[in-house]
């Protein structure tokens, strides 16, 4: 009797499971409306004609999850746009021109198209689906690198009839392998290495990269494009695109050849607002290989070791049923992607969080079921950026798989907007939670000079150190023989303007002599007369420096640099044309341009009870902003109203150290 119970439980569970799968299929078919017969034809085909149980299973899976996927309704319109794109791509002066031209066409002729979408369940034809399933199975079962994959792996990594939404329901599985198979088709069958997943993906990736290079592509991150290029033929001619564009195209090419691949993405890196996408694949050793830079570099490189990672999502064909429940029942609906799976723990240490929510905050909420976890992003000032939803229960907010080494806050819905319901907190590498709370009654303050609005990397510090030991010299001779040293730089915290004493007489030639080993590195150099007027004469430098390098030292751009291809003996300066007395100079080490900059307008804020409160507006007179009452252990933010995008929150500790989040 005892042995019957587990069996009965197993049967019961499998019945429940079957019922659920059947239910999903039932609702999908119901959602198909007039297209239902097409989908039933597919199921019938694999029941009666091609009696392959796995293909039938695959068809049921694709149909069950199809309601979440969508395409352009007006296929003639999108095809006509792609037709124009094919005429433009690869022509004209540059990929930027092609992008701008297509954006113009998109805006003027097809602006409505992106909003006119239809669920695939209403439009996918039986022939299209059967053809896709058959081709995917054929690749899986015949390609030497794919045969060992399990059905579940095949289903997730190869089978789906599309890689991205609004992808044309075209013959991508036929066209792409033909176009990108020149190299892979020459691999002998007994070449174990190149017939592995890793080997084959590397070969195909190289061919994609090479063919895209032939048509002059470049990855363009910064500017808006027109309607994305998501058909097989436009992919083959794609000359510009974001990381997501390129990995989408690459993933389609890989899957078309039976190479397993998927797209992972961070909505935001943990300490800046930018997201990123990359492709990932299970290699022959069973490990997931994440790539780093679209299709440019090979797989298996170190994955951004210093980026903070709050969440990583994998684009899936499967509907995330938990997210579906959220979307159906939340009173405030944040547009989470229905077809994404949380894979954060593949990339970072994670913790499941239970955050206490104060009773008075709970009472404000109109949705007592769902809450949100957010990080700080920069949108012309601090802004909470939602990463995931969680649930409320017993006065606690519950979130799963949150990346460690991050700053978060919990938000809830008060009936009109999302509001913070707890203090911001850090989740340490060790999983410890530390709240950042400004306590007005017991707050302690410090005075300090702020020099940065953004954290600094090793590179920035290292570059700044390259001015240590540099000298300001003058001479009567162009080759600086008998040069007189007026100033030696002994600190990286050099003032924005340095007065020169001992300038009792005038000299014609003035220079900054860089220390040996620095490769000359500086960003800007300027000389001023006794009245503070900037001197503008002919730039000079050691013979190894070209005119371009000299100009970069005086161009006023902190992101352009004077750097010479030799470590020692570099200098840059001015030939004043006649002897002149220089009163002061300014020098800017090479940087990321996030140092406080004289002339820029700043405001320092601290976070107090859901508000960012100003600690004072300043126009920087120097490269340091002095504040005399900065609250300790409180979240701070330095805004630059003049220029730049990079700003991050920080905390000043009792030790005077700044910690950036």
């Amino acid at each position, binding site marked *: 009797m005892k042995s019957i119970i587990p069996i009965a439980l197993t049967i019961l569970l499998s019945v429940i499971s079957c019922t659920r799968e059947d239910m999903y299929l039932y609702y999908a078919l119901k959602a198909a409306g007039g297209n239902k017969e097409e989908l039933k034809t597919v199921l019938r085909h694999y029941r009666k004609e091609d009696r392959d149980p796995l293909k039938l299973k695959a068809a049921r899976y694709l149909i069950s999850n199809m309601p979440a996927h969508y395409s352009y309704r007006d296929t003639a319109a999108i095809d006509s746009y792609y037709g124009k794109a094919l005429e433009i791509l690869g022509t004209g002066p540059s990929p930027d021109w092609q992008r701008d031209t297509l954006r113009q066409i998109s805006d003027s002729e097809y602006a409505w198209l992106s909003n006119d979408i239809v669920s695939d369940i209403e439009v996918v034809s039986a022939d299209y689906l059967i053809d896709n399933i058959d081709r995917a199975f054929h690749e899986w079962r015949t390609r030497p690198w794919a045969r060992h994959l399990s059905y579940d792996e095949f289903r997730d990594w190869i089978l789906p009839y599309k890689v991205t939404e609004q992808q044309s329901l075209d013959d991508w599985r036929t066209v792409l392998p033909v176009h990108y198979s020149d190299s892979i088709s020459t691999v002998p069958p*007994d070449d174990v290495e190149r017939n592995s997943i890793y080997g084959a993906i590397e070969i195909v990736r190289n061919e994609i990269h090479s063919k895209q290079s032939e048509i002059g592509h470049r990855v363009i991150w910064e500017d808006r494009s027109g309607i994305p290029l998501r058909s097989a033929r436009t992919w083959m001619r794609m000359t510009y695109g974001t990381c997501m564009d390129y990995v989408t195209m690459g993933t389609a090419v890989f899957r078309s050849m039976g190479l397993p691949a998927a797209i992972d993405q961070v909505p935001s890196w943990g300490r800046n607002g930018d997201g990123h996408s990359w492709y990932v694949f299970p290699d022959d050793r069973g490990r997931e290989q994440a790539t780093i830079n679209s299709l440019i570099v090979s*797989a298996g*490189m170190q994955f951004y*070791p210093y980026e903070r990672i709050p969440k990583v999502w994998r684009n899936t064909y499967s509907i995330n049923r938990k997210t579906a429940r959220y979307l159906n029942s939340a009173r405030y609906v944040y547009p989470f992607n229905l077809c994404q799976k949380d894979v954060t723990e593949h990339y*970072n240490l994670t913790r499941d969080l239970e955050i206490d929510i104060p009773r008075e905050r709970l009472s404000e909420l109109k949705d007592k079921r769902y809450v949100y976890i957010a990080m700080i992003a920069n949108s012309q000032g601090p802004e909470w950026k939602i990463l995931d939803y969680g649930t409320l229960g017993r006065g606690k907010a519950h979130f799963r798989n949150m990346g460690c080494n991050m700053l978060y806050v919990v938000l809830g819905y008060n009936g009109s907007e999302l509001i913070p319901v707890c203090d911001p907190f850090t989740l340490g590498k060790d999983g410890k939670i530390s709240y950042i709370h400004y306590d007005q009654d017991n707050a302690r303050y410090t005075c300090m000079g702020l020099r940065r609005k953004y954290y600094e990397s*090793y590179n920035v510090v290292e570059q700044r150190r390259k001015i240590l030991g540099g000298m300001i010299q003058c001479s009567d001779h162009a080759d600086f023989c008998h040069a007189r040293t007026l100033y030696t730089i002994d600190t990286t915290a050099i003032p924005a303007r340095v007065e020169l004493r001992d300038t009792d007489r005038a000299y014609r030639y003035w220079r900054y002599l860089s220390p040996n080993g620095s490769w000359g590195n500086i960003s800007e150099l300027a000389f001023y007369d006794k009245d503070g007027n900037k001197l503008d004469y002919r730039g000079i430098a050691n013979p190894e420096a070209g005119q371009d390098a000299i100009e970069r030292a005086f161009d006023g751009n902190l992101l352009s640099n004077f750097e010479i291809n030799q470590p020692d003996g570099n200098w840059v300066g001015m030939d004043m044309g006649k002897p002149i007395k220089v009163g002061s100079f300014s020098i800017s080490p090479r940087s990321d341009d996030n140092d406080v900059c004289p002339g820029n307008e700043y405001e320092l804020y601290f976070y107090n009870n859901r508000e960012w409160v100003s600690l004072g507006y300043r126009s920087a007179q120097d490269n340091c902003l002095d504040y005399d009452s900065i609250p300790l252990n409180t979240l701070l933010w330095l805004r630059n109203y003049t220029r730049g995008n990079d700003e991050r929150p920080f905390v000043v500790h009792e030790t005077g150290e700044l910690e950036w989040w």
Partner: protein
Amino acid sequence: MKNRNLIPLVFMVCIHLAGCHKDFSVKVSLATAGSNRPELESVLEHYRTADPNPQKLQAAEFLISNLPAHYSYSGPQIYEYYDYASRILADTTLTPEQHRDSLLAITCARYADLPLHTVPDAQIIRSDYLIYNIDKSYSQWTTCPWSSQVSFDEYLEWMLPYKAVELQELDCWRDTLLAYFGKGLEHPIKNDVEYNTTMGVADMLRNDTYNGLHRYGLYTRSGLPLLSSHLLAHQSYGDIPDYARTAVLVMRSAGIPAVLDETPVGSRGTAATSWFVILSDRGQELTSEWDLSTQIGGGFFPYERGPKVYRNTYAINPERWEYLKKAKYHYPFELGKKDVTVRYFLTSNLELPIERSVRKHLKDRFVYIASAVRSEDTPWQIVDFGKIIHGKACFRNMGREVLYMALGYDGKKLIPITAPFILHKDQGIEYVKPDTVQSPSLDRWKNNSL
């Protein structure tokens, strides 16, 4: 010889494995210490009374309860060898080849049998040495920002152990190696990204050690390994495992969690057979690929295949203890090894049918699996043991795309109990005729011999 030291201990430790009772296993381990028992007891007493830290006490119990798996050279002769090696390595007029050949010559002439004379660490280790190791590693674990992601269990295995490999000298390697290669930690460039991270510190140490060692790869036979920290710092020659071992010790000396992984057979192509692994800031195990010369976490031999990967652990592998206790034939499996093959290769659990006629010759339920290697003399290398269950030879986590054969003990020797077979990538098993094993067509399923 190593096992000869261990086998008498098996009866005492078997209950430790069966009962899994911490206090009891410590007691059993203490019983193996002989006259050195008071030294071990004083360590426990120290953390109960003088420094009553429950975690340190737990660490001490971990070290002591697993002591029976570890051993050192017995007698002072090894120090003679190390003194000689020290003089040879200090002679800058000699090339690395001459260093190696001189030490090989004296090893052959005077010290060839030293590895045969070992003593369990339990019988020689001193209390102050254990306390020094526990205090030092614990302090690093609890204060270094680059190890704050490490859990206590991970700390025990990745940071705490007083040695990384057997026969390592019980010296102050943490201080010595840090003094040689940890200069960068004294004045690191402070910034808000790389500074004080596991990756940043590990990369700095790797670079400093790589540049400080004047590493020179020599792969032919050497003398006794240089397992004293002063010698490690002056190592002028060595193979990949030598430098990978040094890397583990350097990393641990600075509080970076690190372990040494290795294969029981050679590579398929030209890959390393031993490498170090660190636990990154994100809790990921990042491999070094080649010893000190390659970036940590930057790709790992994508085309390699093999039967097994083992991790050197301080903890006793309970399955191997059980094997030592119960097996009628004793293959010299090291006790401080953990099977981590699944982290590197696609693996399969095998259930190989054994014909009744073959089974009746077997005198032991333990069976063995051997991997084919490219060697005419010893074409099969035993890589693991398994058990016969319901008439099938069962082995766990076997790497795919490898040519194997199962063996059993007939009371006198090991005999084949299956035909050679290829475990394919898709988990299919293809048996081949024994007389075709040396055929070049099967070469692609073999690894090199070590």
